């Protein structure tokens, strides 16, 4: 059964799926950061987050108040497009379909793993009926 989008179950599956992508772990081996996701037009849905340390996801769950290096948010409609792979990471950022708070330089420097990370989000069977 598909996980509800932006649920704790969904973000934990994202964390687990990350393990199956050695390329992103290699690309981010010098990277340490936390980031949060939320749905712009669904303020009732709690935010979720990932914590990556040296390329490994070591926390995937509800946003728990720790410092976030990045925050990413989009409308439900745009999240669907991003997860479907209809928009690349770069064009999502440049067109602001994916809103972004944090170091833009870091995002640009790590654009390849950033795109892989969006692909990982899209690999999780998801139920948008939330």
């Amino acid at each position: 059964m598909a996980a509800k989008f932006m649920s704790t179950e969904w973000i934990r599956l994202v964390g687990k799926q990350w393990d199956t992508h050695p390329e992103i772990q290699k690309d981010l081996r010098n990277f340490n950061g936390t980031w949060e996701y939320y749905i712009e037009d669904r303020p009732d849905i709690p935010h979720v987050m990932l914590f990556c340390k040296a390329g490994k996801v070591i926390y995937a769950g509800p946003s728990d108040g720790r410092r976030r290096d990045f925050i990413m948010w989009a409308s439900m409609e745009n999240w669907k497009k991003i997860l479907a792979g209809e928009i690349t990471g770069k064009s999502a950022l440049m067109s602001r379909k994916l809103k972004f708070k944090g170091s833009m330089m870091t995002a640009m420097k790590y654009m390849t793993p950033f795109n892989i990370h969006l692909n990982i989000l899209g690999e999780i069977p998801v139920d948008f009926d939330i």
Partner: protein
Amino acid sequence: MYGFTVDPNYSGKNLPGWFLMSTYLQRQLHCSLHFSPQDDFARGRNAVLQGGIDLVYANPFDWVQYVEKKGFIPVAKPKEHFDEVLLCSRKGSPWVDFASLPERIHIASASDATLVHMVGLFLLDKAEIDRARLDFTFTGSYQAALKSLLQGRVDLAFVFDEVYSSASRITQESLQVIAQSDDAFAFHAFCISPRLAQLQDALCTTLCNMEQSEAGRRLLQDIGFSGFAPVNADEVACLTALAEEYISGHEAIDLRATSTLAIDDSAFLVAREEPGEETK
């Protein structure tokens, strides 16, 4: 009379074409322009920031400053073309790839306040070249950076892709490309001052329609473009955020950049959670 200038990289390589461009724009826009080419980046920036220029074709970090400090409006950018960077050594030198680079690496770069420099640093970061190994010579123009490399005064150069692609075959064959960017996010743009704001739509239309007339196509060929496209507000916001961050010097959160700070696991809740477990 309105002042018009272009990024020194462009006027330096194709001055007659830009004088013709100035004439073309005056005819199309029915206004009087005074074209004043600049010798280097610093002079070009000063000319705009001191208020003597109302129309400028600028590199991304410069036009972000003009927008922020002088209220300039980005209007049009090269069509399907972005600013990219090549990291080059001299052919025949021992520096053929990242692994072969010397302990101290001497690099020519036009200016540290350019996107070319920033992206060049990214190329080295991606190859895990510690920035502490780098020594820079800032040459004031992209062409001068290339010249420094060819004359053997540096080990490497950050070469703007347009300089590389417009260089002679002999020059290109004298270079060893170690890495090149393919980011496609930054672009030069025509920008107007608030004094010319009433011509924004007309300028955008004129530039974006150049390829539709014989005279326009010929001029585009002269100055080395295939056409122009409108700049949108989202692109401006994105590049502004990027340039401001770079200029502020706050490049965050990669381990090497923060390596002087010990990263202690206890500072974080290290809780790898699997589906089905309770969240900590």
